Structure formats: C-alpha cells, structure tokens
C-alpha cells in the first residue's frame, strides 16, 4: 500500500436510536484497487458507504481522502470530493436519453445548451470507450436493459469526476455475460488510478475482481484480507463467523438463547420422510420485479408438521419464493398443490381459505393497515369467512373480543383492541401479524425473516408458536437470512442461491459452514467443516 491511501475511514460510529449500525469501523482503500466489502444483511456495508457518500451523518469518526480530512454532509459534497456511488435502484429519467440523464444536475459548458450537450456527448463516448462501458449516448433510457442502465449510472459518476466509485450489489440483476463485462470495466478503471468499492455478498465475484476485501458482521469490521492470502473456503468461514470462535460456542446467538438444544432435540428426532406430504411444488417458475425469472423449475415437498428452513442471503429469490408459495405472486409455470387442492391459478383469497398463512418480511408494507386498529388488522383476510360475520355483516363485537384474547395470548403491548397498528412497536406489529396468521388455523405457514429486529423474548415466543403449529400438523416454511435461526428451528435446511436450491440437509446433519458455502454460491463440499 502507498504511504497515503486514497481513502481512509477511521473509527466510524453510526447509531439509529438504540441500534449501533456501525461500531467503530475503519476502512482503507488505495488507488488502483478494487476493494470488496462483504457481509450478510445488516452487517453495515451499505450503511458505511452511505456515510461515505453523505447520505447518513456519522456520529463520530473521520474520513480522509488523499490524506486530507473530508467533511461530507451531502452527496453533493461527496461528488465534489470525487466520490461516486451507484445504488441498487437507479434514479433515472426514463424518457431522457443517456446523455441527458448523465448531464442532468451538472453545469453544461460551451455557451449554449445544445453546444454543451454536444461536448458532454463527446466526453461520454470517450469515457465509455476508454473503460469498455458500451452504451449508445442517444438511446432513450427506458428502452435499455438493466445492465446498460447500470453502465449509465457508472458513467454518470465518472462524468462527475469520481475517483472513488462505490457499487452497491451491482451484479444482482445482471446476466453472467454482463457481469464479466462489468468486471472488465472495473479493472480498466483501477488501472488508470481509480479506487472502487464493491459491496457484495457473493464470494466468487469478490475473488474474481477484488484486490482486497473487508468482511463486516453485525456493524463491525471482522477482517481485511488480501486477495492473495485467502481463498473461497477461508472467506466463507470468515463471513459465517469464524471470528466468533468455533461455531458451536457462538454463545449469545438467538438459537442458544432460545434454549432450543434441549427442546429442539425431541422435536428433531423425526427424520425427513416421516411426514405425510402437505404441499407439493412442481417445477415452479417465478419472475421478479425486474422481469428476471429468478426462480426457475423449482420443486419442493413439505410434509405435515414439517418445518423446512431456507437459508440464504437476501436477493437470492426469498421474496419471490415466499410470494409464490402464498398466492401473492403469479406463477409463470409449474403447479402448487396444498393438501390435495390445486391452487396454481387461484386468487389469493382462495389460498387463504385453503389454509395458507403468510408472515411477510416487510411488516409495514405487506403486513398491516397502519391507520386501522388491531381488531381490523386481525380480521383482515378472514373478513369474508363465515365465522367473522353475522347476518352477512361483519360482527365487530365478536371481532373485538377475539382481538382481546389475541392481545393476551400473544402479549401484544397495546391499550386496547382499538389501538392503531401503526402506533405499535416493530415487535408488537409482528405479534399482530403472527396472531392473524395463527387465527387462520393454517395448514401451510410461510414465514419470512420472522424474528428480524425482535428482542430475544419475542424471538423465543415466535419459535414456540412455530413449534406448536408444527406439532398440530401444519406444514411450515421458514425463509430467513439468519442462518442460526434456520438451523435452530428447521427439520430440514435448504440453502437458497440465485433462486435455486444449492443444498439440502436434515437438521441432524447440518454443518453451518457447509450451508454458508452453498448459500454464497460455492459448490465444493468439503467434509469436516471450517477451513
């Protein structure tokens, strides 16, 4: 490394209320360097970069650029200091051309608007040829595929003179060919002296393009590694948590706090195959919001009373899988049968009445009516059912009574059934959603990140409820980014990678390192665990 690194962030702290999102994190990036920033969800990668780009203000810590202290209060400051960022979602004006999008917000030179635009266009052509970022400067942005639109974003940063370029999960929606092209461009850029920070969770890509990599976990830096001194196995181990000592003694993890070891043991003596099949999924294909068939030819059978856990890093098809299994997202092909009923083409309401209950990941967006009371939120989905109505009309008195019972049973902290759901804390909102799901007397229960952001007490409560439902014969699918959680709760663990099943283990034979390798896209399976 040179004497003064291009970028040096030192002891950066950022808190959100009581949550310490960044805990004295330091990061050094040199010139001519692609630096990978790795970690699971909530590790703090994006938060750290948002601090650097001026979107968040750090509580403490310093940022040096080329050895000089940098004060970054807004993206404008960041751009002036030569920092550019390409976000996961692009902010582009669809009806403008590539050139117009790139110059938008900059001062054009050359006297007149058209002269300035012409000069800008020449520079864009020059930049795109120099770095292999193939793009037609006169194309209208809305006609372009995702990969090209991403190039437009990169050119936007280069056009503004970025010397440090941050890319947030740039490969998520790219084809393999586009990924290769992107990496070639990145190499071309660092060759000319730029620095690139690549936020990612994919080990293969990191190894393919990065010179150095920093692994983050729980808002702290775990380790910074040189490409030369590491390999895939090692990196996977660091990501999954080698730094906490051996996996089994990862003491404060929720799995142990749950006390699952004793209770779970009895539950888990049943072997896969002992369950009568409850849900059959056959060669299902689902499209994501970007028009990509993320899940393709997916097969799965879940038995009555079986808990199947999907482990994986976000963006590998979790949302699409959850919504396909609950009738929220239409299937492009394939079929889903629940307890002998074919629900492939059914309305969402028919899925509900067939006993499919869903605890979505995004509680606020998909889970609750914020302005309505707990009573209304609990009845939503079953409001057309016979038990909810009297003489055709909704029986609100009975609904209120049921809500009171649920508030007691699920220990929802609220004054009354009329308390607005939007006024509840995150944990209590989750309890409302769970109460609704269990009130459906589900025969198939889909839970997506069911305990994210919950305290240990609430987490334990959720696990107890899941177990209870499984014991009464409900088929359960838990999709979670928390590997500990998946292992603690499931009878069968499946690793999810890029919309496919990258490995399957009965709970008795799960090796967390192996799961970690598979869910980050490594197919080599080595017996014996950690590297």
């Amino acid at each position, binding site marked *: 490394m040179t004497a003064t690194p291009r970028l040096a962030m030192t002891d950066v702290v*950022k808190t*959100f*209320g*009581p*949550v310490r*999102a960044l805990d004295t994190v330091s990061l050094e990036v040199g010139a001519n360097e692609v630096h990978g920033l790795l970690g699971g*969800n*909530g590790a*703090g*990668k*994006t*938060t750290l970069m*948002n601090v650097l780009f001026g*979107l*968040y*203000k750090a509580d403490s810590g310093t940022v040096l650029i080329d050895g000089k202290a940098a004060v970054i*209060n*807004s*993206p404008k400051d960041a751009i002036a200091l030569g920092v550019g960022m390409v976000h996961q979602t692009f902010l582009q004006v669809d009806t403008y051309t590539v050139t117009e999008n790139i110059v938008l917000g900059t001062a054009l030179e050359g006297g007149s608007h058209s002269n300035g635009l012409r000069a800008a266009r020449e520079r864009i052509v020059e930049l795109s040829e120099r770095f292999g970022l193939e793009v037609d400067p006169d194309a209208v942005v809305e006609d372009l595929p995702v990969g090209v639109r991403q190039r437009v974003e990169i050119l936007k940063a280069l056009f503004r003179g970025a010397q440090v370029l941050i890319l947030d999960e740039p490969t998520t929606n790219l084809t393999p060919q586009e990924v290769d092209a992107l990496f070639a461009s990145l190499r071309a850029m660092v060759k000319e002296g730029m620095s690139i920070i690549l936020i990612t969770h994919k080990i293969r890509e990191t190894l393919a393009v990065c010179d150095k990599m920093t692994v983050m976990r729980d808002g702290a830096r775990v380790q910074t590694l040189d490409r030369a001194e590491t390999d895939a196995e090692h990196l996977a181990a660091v990501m999954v948590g080698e730094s906490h000592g051996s996996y089994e003694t990862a003491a404060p993890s929720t799995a142990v706090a749950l006390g699952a070891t004793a209770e779970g043991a009895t539950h888990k003596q049943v072997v896969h195959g002992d369950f009568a099949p409850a849900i059959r999924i056959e060669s299902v294909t689902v499209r994501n919001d970007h028009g990509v068939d993320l899940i393709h030819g997916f097969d799965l059978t879940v038995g009555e009373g079986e808990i199947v856990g999907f482990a994986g890093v*976000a963006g590998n098809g979790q949302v699409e899988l959850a919504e396909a299994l*609950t009738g*929220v997202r239409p299937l492009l092909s394939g079929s889903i049968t629940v307890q002998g009923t074919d629900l492939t083409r059914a*309305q*969402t*309401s*028919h*899925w*509900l009445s067939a006993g499919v209950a869903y605890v*979505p990941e*995004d509680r*606020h*967006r*998909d*889970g*609750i*009516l*914020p*302005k*309505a009371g707990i009573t*209304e939120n609990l*009845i*939503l*989905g079953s*409001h057309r059912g016979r038990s*909810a*109505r009297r003489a*055709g*009309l*909704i029986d*609100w008195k009975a609904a209120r009574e049921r809500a009171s019972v649920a508030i007691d049973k699920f220990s929802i*902290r*609220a*004054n009354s059934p009329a*308390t*607005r759901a939007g*006024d509840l*804390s*995150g944990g209590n909102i989750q309890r409302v959603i769970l109460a609704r799901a269990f009130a459906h007397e589900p025969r198939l229960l889909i839970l997506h990140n069911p305990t*994210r*952001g919950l305290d240990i007490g609430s987490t334990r409560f959720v696990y107890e409820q899941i177990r209870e439902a499984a014991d009464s014969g409900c088929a359960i699918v838990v999709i979670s980014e928390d590997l500990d959680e998946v292992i603690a709760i499931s009878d069968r663990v499946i690793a999810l990678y890029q919309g496919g099943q990258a490995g399957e283990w009965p709970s008795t034979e799960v090796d967390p390192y192996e799961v970690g390798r598979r869910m980050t896209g490594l197919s080599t399976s080595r017996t014996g665990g950690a590297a």
Partner: protein
Amino acid sequence: MSTMQKSETGPGGSPPVAKPEARGPGILTNIAWTVVPYVASVVLAFFLGGLLIQLMGYNAVDALRAVLTSSFDTSFGMVETLHKWVPIVLCAYAFAIPLATGKFNIGAEGQMLLGATGGAAVGITFSDLPMVVLLPATLVAGVLAGALWAGIAALLLVRFRVNEILSTVLLNFVSFKLIDWVATRVWPDAGAGHPATTPVGDGARLPLLGSAPAMHSGVLLVLALAIFIAVAMRFTPTGFEMRAVGDNLRASMVNGVRTSRLAGAGLVIGGGLGGLAGAIDVAGVHGRMLEGMQSNFLILGIIVGLMARGSMLALPVVAFGIAVLEYGAGTMQLVSAVPVEMVLVIEALILLLLLLSDLVRDRLRSAR
C-alpha cells in the same frame, strides 16, 4: 442536512428495535385531537375571510352574519339549504367512496348530468305512468346512467390502466356536449329561453313535504342513504375491504383483497351516486333537465370529501355545513354586496387550514 434515516427498515435492513410504545390517550383525548383542528380551522378561516372582506371595503361582520345565519332565519332558508345539501352530499360520496379505495373521481358533474339525462329520459318518455312506477324508474335510471358513465372510466382503469383522474375529467366535457344535444335536439323546450328539456311527467316528481316552503322528499331519501352508506362501509366485507385498500394497498392484496376490481367498483358506485344527484334534482327541484344544473357541485363535493377525511359519518354533516355557507352566500351578496365567490374562498381556506393542521398536530404530539 443529510440524515436520511429510513424510518422502519433502518440501516441495511436491521430495524431499530425499540420504538416509542403506543401512548395511552383516553377516548376523550382522541376526540379532542380530532375535533379541535376542525373548530380551529373553521374559526381561523372565517377570521381570515372576514379580514379579506374588510380589506375589500365591505362590512365583514354583516357579511359573515348573513352567510352563517340566513339558513336558520327562515323555514324557506332551511328548505333551500337542504335542497342544496342533497347534490352536495351525493357528489361528496361520488368523490369519497372511490377515494376510500385510493382512486380519484373528478367526474361527479358529468355523472350528475348523465343521471339527470337518464332520469329525464324516463320521466319524459313514460310521462303517463303512475307515480309508483315512474318515480322509482326515474331515480333508478339516473343511478344507472351515472354508474355507466363512471363505468367507462372504471373499465379503462381496470383493463387498460388508464389514469382515472384523466378519464373522469375528460368525460365531464363529453357530458356537456351530450346534454347540450339532448336539451336542444332530442326533447328541447322551445319556450324555456335556456337549453332545457320539456318537463317530466307528474308521476316522475318527488312528493313535496310541508306547505309554503315545501321540501321535496329526496332529502329524506338521501338521509336514509347516508345512514345506509355509513353502515355499509363499516359492517359489510366490501366496505371493510375498501377502507383496507385505502389504508394499505399491498397489505390488502397480500391478505386476499382483489384490489383492482375494488377500485373499479368504487368508481361505479361513486358514479351511481353522482347520477342519483342529477335524477333527484330533476325529480325534486327543476322538473326537467337543464344545462348548468351541475352548478359547482363537483368542486364542493371534492371539498366536502376531503374535509370528511374518509369518515362516512362526518361527511353528511360537513356537507350540511357547506350547504349552509352556499345558501348564505346569496344572502350575503344581497345584504352587503360582497360577491358570492367570497364563500368559496372561505371554504377553500377551511380545507387548507385543516390540511395544515395535520402538520401542526403531529408536531405537537411528538413534542409531548
């Protein structure tokens, strides 16, 4: 400032664990938080309106007294006010019911005119029929015509995702041409001196109640309808779904509500109520369809619909308040020569202040 803290998901998806627990305001405090902003907005709007009148060189006290009291001074005033209340409240429903599902119906005047045309068509064509048959037929024809007119916008929305604001506004203009053709070509009344149809049959007229200042029975009909709507929105599954969709469309969809169908249904129901407004004015007030009968009920309906904020209980009450102001406007012009438009200024001020009070209230609440 650059602290763009996402409120719920927090940094990188790990949400802040502790959020302020729900406070425990009693029912009375809750009501106070709702009512005080209304009262304050009305008082302040009248104060500002009065200031404006004074600045224009009129006597503000006399003008405002005329606006506020003339409805209650005479029984004639009350009847006129109630006759104004009917189309205002119906046009307000025409706006508020689709709004509950998150859709904006800006076509109440077109739907009203179509309803009037439908009602007049039946009332003229079958003018010899007895009232038991003709009156219900006239009103139903009005409802259907309004519903069909809004149905065009609903179909465009559900099938082709055409923005409903655009389609309902544009259909208003089509309706003007359409009723012009009906009033000048199909059933023109040459002696009217104004584009209008010939009168409907006696059997199509709403019975009058009371004498001297007689009130048409459409007022009672709409009162019953107001109760029915409040009950239906609260107690029927469809009404619940409409409110749910307006609250959170995604969560409703995830929980099995067919959101696009509901949005279309909301527009059609709203259109039907707009149509009823037209048919009642034909059967109760004018006895015929005439150009210009839509007055400014579209805009008043929107104002009332927004002021009621989704409450189907508050809506008829708010509409009555606006009807009082609208009737008082005429008296004000007579008494103190202030132009009637001044009342629209006050109404707009009430709405603006009410919307502003949301900000103030949230600041106050979080400061507590």
